[in-house]
């Protein structure tokens, strides 16, 4: 496959064969090398062949191989002629990140850091097979699927202000739980309010560097050493089941003939099945919003108990990393609605977009990019240029580099814990094997990923944060 270098950080796979548009990759030469090692670019090329795709099939700097679409893939489809694909969203619908700020500094919590983490570990259910604390009825679950984080706030988890600081205000209004299968509901009932396992985590962090003081302050990030809390999780088994269900329904309706990859299966957006998937996906998005809302509430409770007060624990923002949305974008000079798929990518709206909270609107949307375990995470800000460059999208994390299998061969969980401890980072986990699989060396260099985002202009650097306490599922 031909890859043409456009400039230092932009690479194009020119249109060939069945491609309707070119594919465009944002990466440094170093990141491109690792991206080339798996099927990422082939998958980006496959996406470029789908009906109704607009402009380009985009690939973010942290991309790696996914199912159907690559992880780190962004594609927008014409609302009338285009498609929607469960493989373009991923199995963990609305896997996302929530960031809380505090008025505490690293020094304030130094003596209580272990206790904070221990208490959070007790309070927030995590790990494989760990059920939530609430036994939900079917009717309550359906309410959650309809109302998302709003349900959580009404039920005493957090505040109205949190909703304003969440993508979609914590509720996708197109959700319709009647299209969700019984099996998905069954999987959702025991898992609400749980972190899960795999790459999901909760971190107590401190600000290590501020790149853009003015924007950082608007986001509530004032100084180096300030304590933040980051929560990374998704829609759990319910979302996974929605993805599986609709891949199957679409296969049954349209067949799989001619698909280079079975998870590329899709339905026209306007078709009944396309709409059913979209509305089910919105419901799963809501489940994930409610999930993070509850976990954030418990974290505040712990801070209140251990530190005496949840001082200034305001939500900076909550972003989706796996989602399809209907958004307005300028295409060939015309504002048009498109169905944009972000799979392992973060929305990065620039100044002026009405979807952004009023407080941030003059500056751009906060973009939260978690690093791998024990490494830095970043807060970026969306840009105006990103609208033209990537349909307002940027990276979502470090992106894996090494297989879990290989990570297990190379690392031991206990050894990683000891190394983190030497760096002043506390670690709690339900599984040492899980810790080894998530070793930071198994991931791409997040510093390099955000540097590309910044240089290309799809998300500009605001602050760098590092963990002081890590909780893994």
């Amino acid at each position, binding site marked *: 496959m031909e890859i043409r270098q456009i400039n230092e950080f932009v690479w194009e796979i020119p249109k060939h064969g069945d491609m309707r548009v070119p594919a465009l990759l944002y990466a440094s030469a170093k990141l491109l090398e690792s991206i080339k090692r798996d099927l990422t670019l082939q998958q980006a090329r496959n996406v470029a062949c789908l009906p109704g795709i607009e402009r380009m099939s985009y690939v973010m700097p942290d991309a790696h191989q996914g199912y159907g679409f690559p992880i780190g893939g962004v594609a927008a489809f014409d609302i009338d002629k285009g498609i929607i694909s469960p493989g373009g969203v991923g199995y963990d619908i609305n896997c996302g990140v929530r960031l809380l700020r505090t008025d505490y500094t690293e020094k304030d919590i130094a003596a209580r850091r272990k206790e904070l983490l221990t208490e959070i570990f007790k309070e927030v259910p995590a790990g494989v097979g760990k059920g939530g604390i609430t036994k939900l009825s079917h009717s309550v679950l359906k309410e959650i699927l309809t109302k998302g984080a709003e349900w959580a706030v009404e039920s005493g988890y957090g505040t109205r202000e949190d909703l304003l600081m969440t993508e979609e205000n914590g509720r996708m209004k197109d959700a319709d739980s009647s299209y969700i299968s019984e099996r998905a509901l*069954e999987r959702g009932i025991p898992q609400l309010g749980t972190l899960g396992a795999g790459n999901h985590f909760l971190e107590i962090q401190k600000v290590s560097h501020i790149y853009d003081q003015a924007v950082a302050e608007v986001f509530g990030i004032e100084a180096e050493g300030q304590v933040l809390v980051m929560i990374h999780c998704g829609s759990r088994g319910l979302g996974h089941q929605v993805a599986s269900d609709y891949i199957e329904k679409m296969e049954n309706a349209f067949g799989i003939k001619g698909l280079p990859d079975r998870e590329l299966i899709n339905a026209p957006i306007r078709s009944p099945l396309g709409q059913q998937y979209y509305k089910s996906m919105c419901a799963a998005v809501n489940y994930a919003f409610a999930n993070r809302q509850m976990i954030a509430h418990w974290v505040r409770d712990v801070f209140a108990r251990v530190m005496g007060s949840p001082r200034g624990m305001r939500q900076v923002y909550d972003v989706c990393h796996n989602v399809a949305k209907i958004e307005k974008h300028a295409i060939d000079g015309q504002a048009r609605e498109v169905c944009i798929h972000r799979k392992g990518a973060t929305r990065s709206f620039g100044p002026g977009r009405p979807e952004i909270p009023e407080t941030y609107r003059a500056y751009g949307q906060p973009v939260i990019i978690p690093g791998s375990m024990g490494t830095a995470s970043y807060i970026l800000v969306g840009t105006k240029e990103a609208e033209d460059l990537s349909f307002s999208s940027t990276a979502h994390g470090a992106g894996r580099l090494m297989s879990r299998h290989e990570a297990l061969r190379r690392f031991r969980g206990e050894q990683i814990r000891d190394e983190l401890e030497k760096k002043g980072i506390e670690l709690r986990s339900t599984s040492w094997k899980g810790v080894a699989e998530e070793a930071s060396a198994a991931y791409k260099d997040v510093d390099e990923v955000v540097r590309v985002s910044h240089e290309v202009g799809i998300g500009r650097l605001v602050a760098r944060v590092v963990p002081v306490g890590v909780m893994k599922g």
Partner: protein
Amino acid sequence: MEKRYRFLDHTADAKFQAFGRTLEEAFSNAALATASLMWDVEAMSKKVKRRVRVEGRDLEQLLLHFLEEIIYAFETQSFLLASVEEVKIEAGPGGGFSLEAVFVGDNEPSKHKFHGEVKAVTYNEMKIEQNDSITIQVVVDM
């Protein structure tokens, strides 16, 4: 004993090959490989039995549905697969396939350690090769 399954490298998730002299045996071994990503299959008691019946438009979909049963039984009924018995795969009259089997295992997750969570079974790089023996390849989302 011959190897029942082996794990291969995959950037983000888990990829394995399962082997068998028959389709039934290979499917059973694929089930054990999937379960082994989450818990120690050998350490489970065998006190609970679950009857499983799935269908598929083709063998790939049949396999996907079969393996999904492990995740479903675990997440909704805390069932931990230890072994698969009485597997029978049949071709349906309309071109599809059906599978019946008995899952045997444990139902006390609090007594065990877990080392991973399989979110979903995928079609990515899925292969079912039928020669003198059967080789199945599966990638699961972790």
